[in-house]
């Protein structure tokens, strides 16, 4: 597995784990009241920050455990990277547009923040899945 493929796997797993932890924590705080009254900001910031830190630590851990593994990034890695980014990018745009419309319609900050977070996570997951699928299969020709 190349450095970039391993990185794609790490980011995919961390994105799923981070969001799963966030959902468990936030939904665990629902105490019969409305969802918008749940304290979500702390878990959101901690899981976003924790996911970034975990990804960095995992990459460092793999590098330390396999010091002779190739650190090379070549044309194929770059092409697959672009392809994955293109697959995930629409969700970032959807999240931004949805947040803008929700803000204009005076939605609660809870929903706006959660739509943005969900779209970031979907972008990471779709982009990550696209990358690992192409790494395992073939780079498509357009």
């Amino acid at each position: 597995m190349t450095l970039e493929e391993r990185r794609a796997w790490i980011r995919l797993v961390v994105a799923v784990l981070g969001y799963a932890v966030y959902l468990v924590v936030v939904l665990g705080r629902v105490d019969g009241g409305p969802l918008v009254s749940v304290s979500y900001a702390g878990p959101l910031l901690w899981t976003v920050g924790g996911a970034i830190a975990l990804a960095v630590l995992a990459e460092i851990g793999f590098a330390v455990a396999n010091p002779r593994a190739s650190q090379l990034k070549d044309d194929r890695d770059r092409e697959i990277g672009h392809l994955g980014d293109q697959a995930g990018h629409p969700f970032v745009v959807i999240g931004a547009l949805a947040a803008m419309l929700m803000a204009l319609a005076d939605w609660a900050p809870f929903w706006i923040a959660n739509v943005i977070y969900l779209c970031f996570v979907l972008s990471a997951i779709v982009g990550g899945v696209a990358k690992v699928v192409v790494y395992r299969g073939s780079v498509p020709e357009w």
Partner: protein
Amino acid sequence: MKPTRVTNRIRALRFAHDEMTQADLADRIGVTRQTLIAIEQGRYSPSLEMAFRIARVFKVPLDDVFDYPDSEDPQ
């Protein structure tokens, strides 16, 4: 989106050149071994520059390494 139609003789050329390993060839053209495997198996179509680097390692013309079918087969 379609798979590459470029075929190659890299595997045969490696064996003809003292059974050069995939790792050796990958090192010489500056790509990962996984990328070389993908090229050999027709799962990745290399850039023109990379194709020239591969041909130069074997000291043969590009046409001796890569082939592209003449006719467009209906998909």
